[in-house]
């Protein structure tokens, strides 16, 4: 008789800020996206000024508006970065040229690598404030920032209308105290079920094999430790494209009947798989967080999948937790943020040098989970707040659906703390799961396969 594993860790769901409120939804259709940037600057500006005092020195800089800056006078301005990339696809260019080649370049190559924009000498970085836009030059490069980042810039306004940067100041990070706990959390991402039994056979069999192994009772060295939490990151349903461009939206609206039926079948399969693993005695809780393409809104932050879509999971509410994307939680005060990875994938396109871990490290530096939202990542138009601002830097950031499996410990500027960033590959392609030991924050990649 297998005794069920009892959770001894204190769990707390910290994803309230990602849930849309009635105030957010009110008049959303008439809202413009500039309000999102306004609220972002409003939230991060105090933290930038706080960090500027530490980096530059208190009283050693003059904080002013960009419109009031005088020529050749060293000032400190705060604004939003805009990266102008010539190779970036533009709907206007497409309409003018009647050429859809740019979208072909936009697609991923077999899902193993993300297509990057080709660099050009005409690429430049601009800083937008509330009244003015100015080109940045100097101590700044294309790999230091992304469109939508809120930054403080110390420099001088030149004659040519450019701003010569001498120092960049990012928002100050607020870190949680270091904690440890005994337990194991398992992360998997990207089931990508198509609804076709033959295509999904490897994914389903790998998932079932993992489920069996996680519930095997044994005393050998290699037997699975008791799982405190299994976090399953979407997308669960296969999406043909990245889901973030016009082409995928049009495709979604024009799905054929067989395609719609297959997505319903894949959802039923997801429901069965998750409910079956949740019923195992040695798995305490399963958290289900959606991705773009799953049956929920595709605008970040994504709401939880409604329980109607997963009826079997809804029946076992204590064991299956339908959560948002991003999903932030704490177990014994160890803070973890998980994301489905569309934000990182879009950011990877803007630089030929970045890897997934580099982007996550930059997100920690920029103190924002998705600065490219709503520029290249669909986001809900909010006016009073920006939920994707990193209020407290977590101990662990998990990003799913990445082409490479990697992890890194990122040091947080201005503190002694570090943040463990992890990129998960798609389970549908690799059958790899990440087992995280909370005691020492060590990772184990586990592959589940069969060859018969």
């Amino acid at each position, binding site marked *: 008789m297998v005794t069920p594993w009892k959770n001894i860790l204190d769990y707390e769901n910290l994803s309230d800020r990602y849930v849309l409120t009635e105030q957010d939804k009110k008049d959303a259709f008439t809202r413009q996206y500039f309000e999102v940037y306004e609220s972002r600057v409003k939230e991060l500006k105090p933290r930038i000024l706080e960090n500027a005092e530490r980096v530059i020195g208190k009283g050693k800089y003059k904080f002013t508006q960009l419109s009031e800056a005088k020529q050749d006078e060293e000032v400190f301005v705060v604004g939003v970065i805009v990266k102008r990339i010539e190779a970036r696809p533009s709907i206007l260019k497409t309409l003018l040229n009647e050429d859809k080649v740019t979208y072909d370049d936009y697609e991923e190559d077999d899902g193993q690598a993300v297509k990057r924009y080709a660099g050009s000498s005409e690429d430049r970085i601009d800083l937008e404030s509330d009244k003015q836009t100015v080109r940045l030059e100097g101590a700044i490069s294309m790999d230091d920032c992304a469109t939508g980042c809120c930054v403080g810039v110390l420099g001088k306004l030149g004659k040519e209308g450019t701003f010569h940067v001498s120092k960049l100041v990012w928002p100050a990070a607020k870190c949680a105290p270091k904690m440890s706990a005994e337990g194991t959390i398992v992360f998997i991402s990207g089931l990508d079920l198509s609804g076709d039994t033959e295509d999904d056979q490897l994914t389903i069999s790998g998932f079932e*094999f993992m489920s069996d192994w996680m519930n095997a009772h044994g005393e050998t060295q290699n037997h699975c430790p008791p799982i405190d939490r299994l976090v399953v990151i979407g997308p669960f349903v296969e999406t043909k494209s990245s889901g973030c461009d016009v082409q995928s939206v049009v495709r979604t609206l024009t799905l054929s009947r067989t395609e719609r039926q297959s997505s319903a079948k894949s959802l039923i399969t997801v429901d069965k798989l998750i409910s079956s693993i949740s019923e195992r005695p040695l798995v305490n809780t399963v958290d289900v967080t959606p991705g773009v393409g799953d049956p929920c809104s595709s605008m970040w932050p994504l709401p939880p999948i409604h329980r109607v879509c997963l009826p079997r999971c809804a029946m076992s509410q204590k064991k299956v937790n339908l959560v948002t994307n991003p999903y932030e939680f704490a177990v014994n005060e160890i803070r973890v943020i998980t994301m489905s990875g569309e934000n990182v994938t879009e950011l990877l396109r803007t630089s030929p040098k970045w890897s997934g871990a580099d982007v996550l490290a930059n997100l920690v530096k920029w103190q924002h989970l998705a600065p490219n939202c709503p520029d290249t990542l669909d986001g809900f138009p909010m006016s009073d707040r920006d939920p994707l601002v990193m209020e407290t830097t977590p101990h662990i950031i998990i990003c799913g659906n990445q082409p490479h499996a990697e992890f890194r410990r990122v040091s947080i500027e201005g503190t002694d703390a570090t943040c463990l960033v992890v990129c998960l590959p798609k389970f549908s392609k690799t059958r790899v799961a990440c087992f995280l030991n909370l005691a020492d924050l060590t990772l184990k990649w586990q592959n589940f396969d069969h060859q018969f």
Partner: protein
Amino acid sequence: MLEKYVKSKGDPVWALYEVSGTVDSSEYPFLATGEEMTKHVVVPESALNDEKSKFLKVHSTNLHSIQRTNPRNTRVYGRSWADNDDLKGKALPQQQKPQKTGESSTAEVKKEKSAEPEQKPCSSSSAKSTTDTKKSTIAPLKKQANLNMFTKKTEKKVDEKEKSVTPPPEEKKARKRPKVEIDEDGPEELPKVVKKTEKTPEKQKKHKKVLESPESDGFPSSREQTPVKEASPPAKRKKSGVNDENKKTKKRLIVTDSDDEEVAEPMEVDVKKSVEKPKKLEERRRTTRIEKVVETYVDEDGYLVSKEVQKTVDCSPQKLSPEKPKPKVITAPVPGAAKVPKKNSTITSFFKKA
């Protein structure tokens, strides 16, 4: 113990083994160099050693599953065990085959039984065969059963009478219309039944008389279905409270053929039940219906004008006579209220005068 069991049994027992160990990152392109992957793989016994050689370090080798049932029906992680390479050239266990054949034979027997009643309608002409076919045959026959729902009682009673009165089976096969014979033989018995039950048997009498033809079979046919339809009031009529007159006109067109018969027959007022139902039918028919009537009249200027007008007509059994042609209504102008039409009040009359 299980491993000993497997070794002792040998064929036809097959086994899958689960191997867990550490593998180099070179096998996984998505993994950074220097990283280690813990791999768990399920392999058949024949590939066990090859698989173990690929591991940097083998942590454990366990027996995953033993297959003793029919491999074709056995599936492990979605894959049929029969596809296992170990089974190539090996005979399947025979123990399960007879069970399967037994099961298949029972299934076949059931199929045969279900097939038999389909043959019966061709051979015999009794109503029993129709009832049997209704129970265990394909959809078209079931539809017939649904249509005959309201006539089941009479059929059963007819069957009972057949038992008492019917001639030997040889004569049955020769006769094409056994129901007609019963009616002819037992006219005294039937009125009681008729009085107690609805009018439907009476309708059947006449329809059967109508349908007596050498070409007709003794089995329910499309012809026979229509009078049943007419006889049985559909449920919708009872439920619908909407006075949709157009629909009622259509319905009445169907019912009018039988109404004449009903009007002629229910002179026997003794039976209350039989009278109540025609009354109910009459009440249903005492409603208005919209009819398009062509009116021709002479207007003030002397022109003969014809107009198509929608008029509401009260329908009653007395009034209903669809066989009678509807006379054209010609409304003569009221004297004094309008000009008296002239004799030569035609268009051409004006030209003649001129």
